[in-house]
């Protein structure tokens, strides 16, 4: 009997020890896991580039408990190879720049009063990295982790002041110090005279094909879409839809609304001819994408057998600028047998 009581005691003790170890290990992992997901899935923006977010709304659900009274500029830093030089123009009201390590610690914050002068210049270095500042004006910050997030907060004093503050917000810059300049190699024209390396999507059912940049990744078409693909940063993205609609503009609007868009405005239409002689219509659409950001779309439509075949190339300008020449070039590769 005594032996059994002893075994039960040891079992309870072992349960407590395991429970404590599991609990502590999980708790220690939560901050870094959430930051990793935030960097790679929620944001998934190119590193060391500013992203200028519009004010938070109920529809923009990226970070919990956002402040709707602040303009956020966000940068996913990576200083594993080079120091990162950041500059920002400071408005005449509350403003701060702050850094968050991969364990979520806020490792620095400088507000407008502490900055003293504008524009402010901050250089972020990793542990063990040095940066020589000859001007004495640069604030050199050592990042506890090689990757993390830099955030600029600007108080929105009033809706009327928002355009001015947005202009100031967008003056922030970021550059890796000492990194070799991006190669400006003049590539020979890709096959078919295109300015980009292309792959082709062929749709046998409706008898058309379209080319798109080879680096883009095919996605899962939804609704009336028959094809979708996107750059790794999620934009630009191409879709091809086939639907019945009274007009090209209607087909385009329905497609953007199906994608979760709102505030859709389609600009003036232009008639054009594809390389194979097919009559087509093009237009630019401005709208709000599902995540709440302003989207811009170049669209090309062809009416075949009572249906509209519409190719769209969409971007969110604050992530990747709208490039009408390239988007038009992609859309105009649409061809029919």
């Amino acid at each position, binding site marked *: 009997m005594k032996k059994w009581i002893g075994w039960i005691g040891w079992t309870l003790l072992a349960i407590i020890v395991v*429970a404590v170890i599991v609990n502590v290990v999980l*708790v220690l992992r*939560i901050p870094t896991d959430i930051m990793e997901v935030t960097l790679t899935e929620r944001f998934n923006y190119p590193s060391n580039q500013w992203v200028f977010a519009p004010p938070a*709304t109920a529809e923009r*659900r990226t*970070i*919990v408990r956002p402040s709707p*009274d602040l303009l956020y500029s966000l940068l996913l830093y990576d200083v594993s190879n080079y120091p990162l030089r950041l500059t920002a123009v400071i408005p005449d009201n509350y403003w701060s720049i702050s850094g968050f390590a991969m364990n*979520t610690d806020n490792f620095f914050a400088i*507000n407008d009063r502490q900055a003293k002068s504008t524009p402010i210049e901050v250089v972020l270095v990793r542990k063990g990295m040095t940066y020589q500042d000859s001007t004495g004006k640069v604030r050199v910050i050592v990042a506890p982790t090689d990757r993390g997030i830099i955030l600029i907060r600007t108080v929105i004093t009033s809706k009327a002041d928002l355009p001015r503050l947005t202009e100031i917000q967008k003056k922030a810059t970021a550059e890796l110090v000492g990194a070799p300049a991006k190669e400006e190699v003049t590539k020979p024209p890709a096959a078919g005279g295109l300015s980009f390396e292309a792959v082709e999507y062929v749709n046998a059912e409706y008898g058309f094909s379209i080319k798109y940049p080879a680096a883009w990744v095919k996605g899962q078409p939804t609704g009336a879409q028959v094809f979708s693909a996107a750059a790794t940063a999620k934009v630009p993205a191409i879709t091809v839809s086939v639907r019945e609609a009274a007009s090209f503009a209607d087909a385009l609007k329905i497609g953007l609304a199906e994608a979760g868009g709102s505030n859709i405005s389609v600009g003036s239409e232009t008639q054009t001819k594809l390389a194979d002689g097919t009559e087509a219509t093009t237009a630019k659409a401005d709208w709000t994408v599902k995540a709440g950001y302003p989207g811009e779309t170049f669209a090309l439509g062809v009416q075949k057998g009572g249906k509209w075949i519409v190719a769209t190339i969409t971007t969110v300008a604050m992530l990747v600028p709208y490039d009408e020449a390239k988007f038009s070039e992609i859309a105009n590769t649409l061809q029919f047998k």
Partner: protein
Amino acid sequence: MKKPFKFLIVALVALVVGGAIGYFTVDPMLNLITNMSGVENGPWGTSLAIGSTSANPYLRAWVAEHGLLALAKSETIYLHAYVDDNGEPLLGNCDYRIEGKAPDTRWWSITAYGEDDFLIPNDQGRYSWSCTEIKLEPDGRFKIYLSKTPKEGNWLPTGDAKELSLSLRLYNPGPAYYDYESLKTVELPHIIKEGCK
């Protein structure tokens, strides 16, 4: 029963039962330890270690889940309220009056959130009131009406949210907010239930 077999049984039971207890107690422990390491003043609560390198692992994990990218107290103090002045949960089917004097801080705001910690959809696009736009009473105090239905004055709509919470943000606050003891007694806005439907 032979000893090695008994050890095996103990180990298996400990791994399964202990692992499950460890896993399912993560959130309750986060809330418990965050509350224990924090400070309360009426319905408002916070920890002055939010965002800082001195935060304990449980507070750090709680912040990651409920307030990612929060600034340290040197810059901002975040106070949260999930209950009213009587300690009852804030509910979407009730009307509340938030009243008090403007905090001693450079800039402040009160924001309402739904049970998912996101802003509450509403036709007015009104999610908060800040010191730059709130209408003050003649005596310099303010009143905010947290309600689903329209109210005169500083109305903070709650849309279709079932459970509510509030955040009071204090940017560059005065010294009374930096210290645990004085933060317990400094005047913070009251949250008074006016009625429920």
